[in-house]
């Protein structure tokens, strides 16, 4: 083992409240080493990451413990006690950070090249020309055409923005790079590229890497050592292979268990009859101005089945889902529901039958009116139907809330007083209260932690039987889709490239599907490393 570059001793972070976000984290990091920090949402990962660069300073958050920067095997600076000026000199050249939000972490008003160049000049005092040269160099290194240095952030895709941020760090050759969920917002294929890039850079420059993620798979692929955080405490820590292969702490075990796997055995389920078609689309096309979101989709959904839809971001999954429930009028083509063209529903008939088609949305925060009590939101569809008094409304709403695993007390809370998983349960309850025939779930679990995700997925499985639902389950996570679906449709650029039985997903016909599969990080492979 080489000298440590960073030594963290009993780090504690307390937010005003007081909320103890991090309750004693210690580790040492040597050059070229990768430390993985995993844990569920709210476990204190970001609190720790920010503390490593002293970024809590100036806020009302209190940081205790030591973050010691080493040079030549000697601690030279305690970031927690350094002056503002000292802190500024190490931020960038010694310690750099890549944030979770590539969408917003770049300045919208300045050209990306200028942003890299300024950061570089700030610490090196290089000339404009030198800075420009260096900018081109690092952009090229992360795989972005240096000619695009004059573009603004909104002209880049999410993955490219993340690369720009990495390039910015790279320009200064930091000794430690802290990456706080660098791939959460990205597609699997892009995620794989970024992870590969980080690994290459580590090898090239010998920098140490702190990789923060909620996704055990992501961390596992790269880290030498993993720390599992829960409620601000490190519950388990160890070499990656050991920790993933033989977890000791029950929480780590639960966490690993909840991770959906592509090779998990599928539950036995009788396939619904192929001739009982509930919904059928023909040549479904949707254009948004010049953007073609859907380019002629032919799809059938059988009564009682669960159809999974996967694809990368922007492939048209949501648009398809919305068209199926008539939230989106097709530019051309038809959607037939029980043999009837949806477009023919008008006025009164539309209002009357609308509730047979329901949708559960991706973002539980946005799908519940933040200014209305959960109970009222769940009862709202009933209220629209009319004919029930307040007591009946409440009784039905509470009944359904209890069915999805909430309690009557939750009915009297606002959405922000619930956790993400609870909100999603409430949203499911609302979708089901009118006993729909078709429910489209648009990434219902993407925003949730693996453990919560597992709970919600199993809830959906149960409800499907009980309510005799036909489900269209949209997700970008292949493993999740596979675990609930009977059949899976793979989408790309507004078209369905193939539809196969869930069991056959691991044996795809189409190369795109194969590429998708390859990009998914595998826990088993890591554990075997």
């Amino acid at each position, binding site marked *: 083992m080489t000298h440590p570059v960073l030594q963290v001793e009993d780090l504690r972070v307390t937010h005003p409240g007081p909320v103890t976000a991090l309750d004693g984290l210690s580790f040492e990091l040597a050059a070229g080493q990768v430390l993985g920090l995993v844990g569920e949402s709210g476990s204190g990962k970001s609190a720790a990451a920010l503390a490593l660069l002293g970024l809590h300073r100036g806020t009302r958050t209190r940081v205790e413990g030591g973050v010691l920067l080493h040079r030549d095997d000697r601690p030279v600076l305690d970031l927690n006690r350094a002056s503002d000026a000292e*802190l*500024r000199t*190490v*931020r960038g050249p010694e310690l750099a950070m890549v944030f979770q939000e590539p969408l*917003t972490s*770049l300045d919208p*008003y*300045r050209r990306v090249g200028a942003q890299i160049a300024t950061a570089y000049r700030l*610490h090196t005092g290089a000339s404009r020309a030198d800075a420009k040269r260096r900018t081109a160099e690092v952009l090229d290194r992360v795989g972005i055409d240096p000619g695009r240095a004059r573009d603004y952030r909104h002209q880049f895709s999410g993955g490219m923005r993340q690369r720009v941020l990495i390039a910015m760090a790279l320009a*200064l050759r930091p000794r430690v790079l802290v990456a706080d969920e660098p791939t959460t917002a990205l597609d699997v294929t892009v995620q794989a590229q970024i992870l590969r890039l980080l690994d290459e850079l580590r090898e090239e420059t010998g920098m140490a890497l702190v990789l923060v993620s909620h996704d055990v798979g992501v961390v596992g692929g790269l880290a030498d050592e993993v720390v599992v955080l829960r409620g601000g405490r490190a519950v388990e820590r160890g070499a990656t292979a050991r920790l993933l292969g033989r977890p000791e702490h029950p929480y780590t075990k639960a966490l690993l268990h909840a991770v959906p796997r592509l090779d998990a055995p599928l539950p036995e389920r009788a396939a619904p009859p192929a001739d009982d078609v509930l919904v059928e689309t023909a040549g479904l096309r949707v254009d948004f101005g010049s953007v073609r979101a859907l380019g002629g989709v032919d799809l059938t959904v059988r009564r009682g089945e669960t159809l999974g839809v996967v694809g990368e971001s922007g492939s048209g999954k949501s648009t398809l889902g919305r068209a199926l429930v008539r939230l989106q009028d097709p530019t051309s083509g038809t959607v037939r529901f029980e043999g009837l063209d949806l477009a023919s529903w008008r006025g009164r008939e539309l209002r009357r039958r609308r509730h047979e088609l329901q949708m559960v949305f991706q973002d539980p925060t946005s799908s519940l009116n933040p200014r209305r009590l959960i109970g009222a939101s769940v009862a709202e569809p009933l209220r629209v139907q009319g004919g029930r008094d307040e007591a009946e409304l409440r009784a039905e709403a509470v009944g359904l809330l209890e069915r999805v695993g909430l309690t009557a007390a939750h009915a009297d809370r606002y959405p922000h007083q619930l956790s993400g998983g609870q909100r999603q349960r409430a949203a499911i309850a609302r979708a089901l209260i009118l006993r729909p025939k078709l429910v489209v779930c648009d990434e219902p679990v993407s925003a949730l932690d693996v453990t919560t995700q597992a709970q919600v997925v199993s809830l959906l499985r149960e409800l499907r039987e009980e309510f005799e639902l036909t489900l269209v389950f949209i997700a970008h996570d292949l493993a999740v889709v596979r675990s609930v679906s009977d059949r899976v449709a793979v989408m790309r650029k507004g078209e369905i490239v193939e539809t196969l039985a869930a069991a056959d997903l691991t044996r795809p016909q189409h190369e795109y599907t194969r590429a998708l599969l390859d990009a998914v990080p595998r826990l088993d492979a890591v554990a075997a490393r």
Partner: protein
Amino acid sequence: MIRFLLRRLLGAAAVLLALAALTYLLFYAMPGDPAQLACGKGCTAPQLAQVRHALGTDQPVVRQFWTFLTTLVAGHSFSTGPSTVWCSAPCLGYSYQSDEAVTQMLLDRLPVDVSLALGAAALWLLLGVGTGLYAALKPGRWRDRITNTVILTLGSTPVFVMALLLLMGACVWLQILPFPNYVPITEDPAQWAQNLLLPWLAIALVSAAGYTRLTRAGVLETLNQDHIRTLRAYGYPERRIVLRHAVRGALPTVVTVAAMDIGLVLAGAVFTETMFGLPGLGKLAVESASTVDLPVVCGITLLAGALIVVANTVADLLHAALDPRVRI
């Protein structure tokens, strides 16, 4: 860009046409009779009829409006008594009160408002953005509160009270400035500035409050954004972050609003003009409204409307120029 401008131009033309019609209708409904006013104290009925005919107000309103419009785009000939003169497009007719060509009257007064608007805008931006930044550097502290209160106090003072206080202070008590008397910049730039100083201050002091808020809010909001955290993570000094980067986030709104505000002052700052005796559009507007001087009233409405529309368009263009995310 070109398409945007073209569309804007078309829209503006429609808006102005509607505006003119509205003004015409409004003043047609007004009980005052321009002929009676022109005719004077001892005017008899037959005389009144003659004056009405001479002014053209004996025609039905639609006809009058049509004449107004055709005159505007094609010009018109007017009788002065012994002879007739040709008023070429864009002709807004002749004032009932002063018999001057309205176009000329407006052109005479516009420089006053242009002077007023530009100087005042420079001052209020300086003051507003300055105090906004000052407050944003240490939000929630006493200096933030005090700045806020002072600026709000100034901002809630009616302009005419502010003007009076400035006049009393500078010209009566301290006697450091003579009473303002508008001098065109073409005659004497120094005098021009000296005489406009108080009016500028009056508008600027009252208007700065909005910009203080806007700047402060914009800067604070930007400071909460992720990209600022990136700057911190790269060791940018805090001052530099606020003064160079966070300001950038407040800038588009500030500039946009300023452009529209300038349009408003250009269209006539009634109180400032009245209090300081500045011969601008606002004063003319009030006076012509009280004497039912229809051609002048319509002329000013159109000009003011046009100025506001132009200002709004400029504001949009500026916003697009300052925020790379907006495309037009």
